[in-house]
């Protein structure tokens, strides 16, 4: 699904965020991406969603080299990737329905299908009763779940999550992770960036650990495996 080949990223100003990172995420695999703050987790996710371009090396998604993707094609790459953010990035001007419907509207889907899909997505995250609410009236966990609904509403083959449990208590975090497991069981590849090691320890999934931009094997994760 995702393949990194000797990927390095140096930001203007000389900061080396990633150094010769190589790994592969199989189709339908769920994996964690961990590391201290500034280790390069966000940069790695940005390279997958083409928010940044690598300074060296190649990133492949489903065998397509992202280096050959032109700038005007980037939107179409992002439509194949569901992205979940730590601060969920919902639009306060719209209600929950419109927020979740956004990827479908962009894709130009017929509104009958939009309603069906949005309701299905909200049902999956257990928020069907909040369709008409404004995001600002929801709790943190609910907002995060709306963000997840938006990411999965067009059933992307790949889900990226950046600190999806960052602001949530352990119980809610577990709930969110259960959701990811559920999507994964339906064949979606999931990559979750998190520094919540306790969370990772409780789940038997592969863990990629970054340290100062280099990929290392995580002793804790190996212990679990």
């Amino acid at each position, binding site marked *: 699904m995702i393949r990194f080949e000797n990927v390095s990223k140096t930001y203007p100003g000389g900061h080396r965020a990633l150094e010769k990172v190589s790994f592969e995420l199989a189709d339908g695999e769920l994996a964690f991406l961990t590391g201290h703050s500034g280790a390069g987790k*966000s940069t790695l996710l940005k390279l997958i969603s083409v928010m940044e371009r690598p300074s060296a090396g190649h990133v492949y998604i489903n065998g*397509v080299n992202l280096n050959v993707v032109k700038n005007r*094609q980037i*939107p179409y790459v992002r439509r194949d990737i569901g992205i979940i953010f730590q601060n969920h*990035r919902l639009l306060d001007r719209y209600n929950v329905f419109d927020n979740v419907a956004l990827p479908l509207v962009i*894709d130009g889907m017929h509104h009958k299908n939009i309603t069906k899909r949005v309701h299905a997505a909200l049902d999956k995250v257990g928020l069907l009763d909040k369709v008409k609410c404004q995001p600002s009236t929801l709790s943190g966990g609910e907002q995060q779940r709306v963000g997840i609904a938006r990411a999965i509403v*067009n059933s992307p083959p790949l889900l*990226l999550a950046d600190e999806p449990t960052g602001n949530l208590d352990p119980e809610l975090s577990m709930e969110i992770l259960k959701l990811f497991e559920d999507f994964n069981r339906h064949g979606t590849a999931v990559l979750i960036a998190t520094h919540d090691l306790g969370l990772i320890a409780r789940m038997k999934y592969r863990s990629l650990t970054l340290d100062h931009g280099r990929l290392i094997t995580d002793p804790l994760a190996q212990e679990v495996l």
Partner: protein
Amino acid sequence: MSLLFKSRNTQGAGNNRHGISAIYFAMLNFIRQGVNSLGEMWRTPIASLMTILVLGLSLTLPATLYVVVKNVQQVSSGFSDAAEISLFVKEELNDAQTQTLVKRLALYPEIESVSYISKSQALKEFKQVSGFGQALDYLDENPLPNVVLVTPTVRYRKPQAAQQLLTKLEAEREVEFGKLDIAWLERLNALLSLLKESVFTVGLLLLSAVILIIGNTIRLSIMDKKEEIQVLKLVGATNAFIHTPFIWTGIWYGVIGGFVAFMSVVMMLWWLESAVAMVAGVYQSNFVLTGLNGNELLILLSLAIGLGFSGSYISVRKYIKDIEPDKV
């Protein structure tokens, strides 16, 4: 349409639609976004209204100047005739000889009427009008010539025909020289073209101002929706999708602003109508103010729409490009 996963069917508009159908749906989407952006403007009525009014007033000024030029032109077209030719009679001629000249001229088919002003008559008139009365008494002799005033028939009042008539009249042996008074007409025309030029210049300046105003308004609105644009880009919106609502906003500003300008001109004309009628009455003229006709309304509106589009297009191209989702 999936770039990375060829077999993936997203059920979006890009799927299974080609040719006319795709164009139809693109148009439908474009219009839907237009209606949405009108609703968007309604969300911030005061701000939208202020922009529209600024726009309307900026367009009203050139439109008004245009109406002024149009009306002045209409008035001056009635003045395009050279009504009189002055013939200066040779000094050595006596009264009897002059009278024969007057009679002979009256028989010309090109001439409607002839009148004779002797030099003493002219001096008397000049004393009255000029205010030089006392000073003129010191003159030893009357410096003014005898003049025959010739009014051509309607056909010979046009500048060129009048000029021809003048040459013919100057050939008369009693005539020293003739003068066709079209200088004032030329001056009027020069003034008119000056007015037109200044209308054009002022109009150009105001129209550029309109582009800048709309551009800046759209820029502020883009800055205001920065976060929204980032999210849209993150979930895979194309630039066209993000640009269209802002372009539409510019177009709507143009449409409504143009209409405001048109209404202002109409109101102004209505306001001035009675005053103009009074002036016309004093001058015993049946002049009526001419407003903007349907064609001119159309031109005004399309101009406004063009300006709205250009202003928003410039802003959209310049500023949306710079807004990129920076943080995952």
